[in-house]
């Protein structure tokens, strides 16, 4: 059924749906996230969490200075994060700008990484300030070049001015281009939406419009994937599953730099959306520096001491 039968695609039905959502009490959400951050994850569960987190990393490079060489190096790291230990799993995806998609795809295929999808940031990432025509072409290009995942940004200006239907229609249009060729992740840039009420509204808006994943941030704006923001998004996917029978994924991105942060995210998932979401098909972490810290913690668990950073590859 179109839009899960929950809205009919009109401005009025969308507004009425979003305005009926219960509010988020910011103090309470912060307190719950802070409480879950006190979970103490040790020994076997820590080992499991580290390996699971590695499979969830969307290994990312989104720099103006990106070159083919840099992207190829990233791909190699994605396939074999630790060349000295082949028991380390591959990451969830490689995330690059539009023009680097074909480079990444080709290189991954040539080094045994055919199973790793390439995610392309899209729709005039990171600002989202371009015409619809450009955004559509941007997405089409990426898919033609072999992107299996599209990380689109929403028009925060439209959202903040209350023009929800415009944001909705954009997502619907991009989803149509993705079709069954690419998974669609919708980036809110929660640091610009600011309130948890907005995060909740944006989550439902994107899910109704056809997002496969909802994603916190571009990584270009702080604050990004704070635990309470991720908590609110996890509550949204959990409740949406009750309403629509479909599990939507969540991708925090930005600011998750070490193993401790990553494990906190997994605890949030486990105790909010539930264990069903603890899989790379429903939870990803957008990161670059995180992977090396996960590897170093993994080595430490095996060897009993912290190795020098020279024992993990810089890219």
């Amino acid at each position, binding site marked *: 059924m179109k839009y899960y039968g929950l809205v009919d695609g009109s401005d009025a039905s969308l507004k009425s749906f979003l305005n009926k959502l*219960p*509010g*988020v*009490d910011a*103090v*309470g*959400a912060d*307190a*719950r996230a802070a409480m879950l951050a*006190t*979970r*103490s*994850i*040790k*020994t*076997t*569960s*820590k080992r*499991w*969490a580290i390996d*699971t987190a590695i499979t969830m990393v969307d290994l990312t490079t989104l720099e103006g200075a990106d070159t083919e060489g840099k992207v190829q190096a990233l791909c190699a790291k994605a396939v074999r994060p630790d060349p000295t230990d082949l028991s380390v799993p591959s990451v969830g995806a490689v995330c690059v700008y539009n023009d680097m998609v074909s480079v990444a795809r080709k290189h991954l295929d040539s080094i045994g990484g055919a199973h790793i999808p390439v995610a392309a940031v899209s729709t005039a990432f990171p600002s989202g300030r371009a015409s619809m025509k450009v955004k559509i072409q941007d997405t089409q290009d990426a898919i033609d070049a072999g992107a299996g995942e599209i990380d689109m940004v929403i028009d925060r200006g439209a959202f903040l001015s209350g023009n929800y239907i415009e944001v909705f229609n954009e997502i619907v249009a991009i989803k149509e281009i993705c079709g069954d060729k690419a998974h669609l992740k919708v980036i809110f840039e929660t640091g610009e939406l600011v309130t948890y009420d907005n995060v909740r509204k944006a989550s439902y808006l994107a899910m109704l419009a056809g997002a496969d994943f909802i994603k916190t941030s571009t990584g270009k704006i702080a604050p990004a994937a704070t635990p309470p923001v991720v908590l609110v998004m996890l*509550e949204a996917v959990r409740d949406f599953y009750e309403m629509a029978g479909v599990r939507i994924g969540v991708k925090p991105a930005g600011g998750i730099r070490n193993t401790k942060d990553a494990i906190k995210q*997994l*605890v949030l998932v*486990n*105790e909010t959306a539930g*264990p069903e979401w*603890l899989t790379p098909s429903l939870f990803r972490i957008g990161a670059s520096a995180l992977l090396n810290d996960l590897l170093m913690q993994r080595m430490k668990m095996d060897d009993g001491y912290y190795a020098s950073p020279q024992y993990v590859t810089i890219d």
Partner: protein
Amino acid sequence: MTFEYAPAPESRASVSIKPKYGHYIGGKFVAGEKHFPTINPATEEVLSSISLGGKKDVDAAVKAAKKALDLHWSKLSGRERGKYLFRIARILQERAREFAVLESLDNGKPIRESRDVDVPLAAAHFFYHAGWADKLEFAGVGTKAKPHGVVGQIIPWNFPLLMLAWKVAPALATGNTVVLKPAETTPLTALLFAEVCEQAGLPAGVVNIVTGDGSTGALIVNHPGINKIAFTGSTEVGKIIAESVAGTSKSVTLELGGKAANVVFEDAAIDESVEGIVNGIFFNQGHVCCAGSRLVIQESISDEFIKKLQKRMEKIRVGDPLDKNTDLGAINSRAQLEKIKELALAGDAEGAERWSPECSMPNKGFWFAPTIFTGVTQSHRIAREEIFGPVLSVLTFRTPQEGIDKANNTPFGLSAGIWSEKGSKILWASQKLKAGVIWANTFNKFDPTSPFGGYKESGWGREGGRHGLAAYLKGVTHE
């Protein structure tokens, strides 16, 4: 594989428990005659042997307190008294881990709570009252206020160290000396506090600790040398105390039971309200006098809300109190467990519907699964009597006024919670609810600056804040 949290137990190495304890009287540990065991309610392991205070011990303690009052304490300036309180507060912080572990061992509460709530708040009470010691004339109690003298303090087993802090800190700040009796099942942190008094160099006899049971408490209440009684505990015992002191010159404050309602309106922030309800009733196994033991919820959202509440309850981790991931620890004693079981059975018999998540509990020790009863009405015992355990009774209402009426329809009046995103409704409801403490969109938040106490059968007087200071002074003129 699923995300199982491996055991993460806090080490017991920081505490050393003696095999036997005496009373702390006049700055010395004095051996008692009879003894009784104190056990770890999570394992039934005997932790130590505790002296049962008799007439001789209480006499000696009162005498020591009187002597300390006359010879030392009454001669000190407020600033000097404050120094001791600051010192005690800092030592509590320095020895926080030791106190937290010992509290969890003796009481059964999760280390996360003793570590993050009980001990830091206990230190905060000493810091707060240390600041008042030399500023009492500015506390709104007038310039003629004087300490009562020797105060007898009887504290409960649910927050042993914290309740000690609530009692001892204001008493010392206002210039009284103390005879304190910790609860029968949880004396160990009070006995460790005696060490803190020594470490702080507190003059001998300013704080005296006599351990024992109800008979010891009665000896303190009825002792002619005691000028004021401060009691926290059951309404039943509170009534006996009130009768005992009637006709004497003793002043008295009582902090007693409760049957608090958490009133959830249809415009509440649902997810955070669910958290608040869970925190309200399952914090400290529900062994909280102000626990939100009744959920009074608007019918229009009740089905959806209960479903969410049940899902959330499935995540509550029951088990070893010393495990850092435990949310719900052990019931404090076999007697308390029996009482909870008895009232839960009454709930079944009266036709309420019982629900608990599946949870595996240890074979030894005293345990009760987190439980909710739906379909409860005002006439059920579980809607009226204090259960003092992890059991929530759910009642529904149709209009806001009906919600308030149901919330107030109880002999108690200690606390209440309001859950709504609408500010005007919160203000309206808070004026109508008859409870000493009202929380809006939060629950079980404590702060030394805030007076705490109840209406009706929930008690007399206030503790904490400036109102709490006044209770330890006579001749208060409220200028």
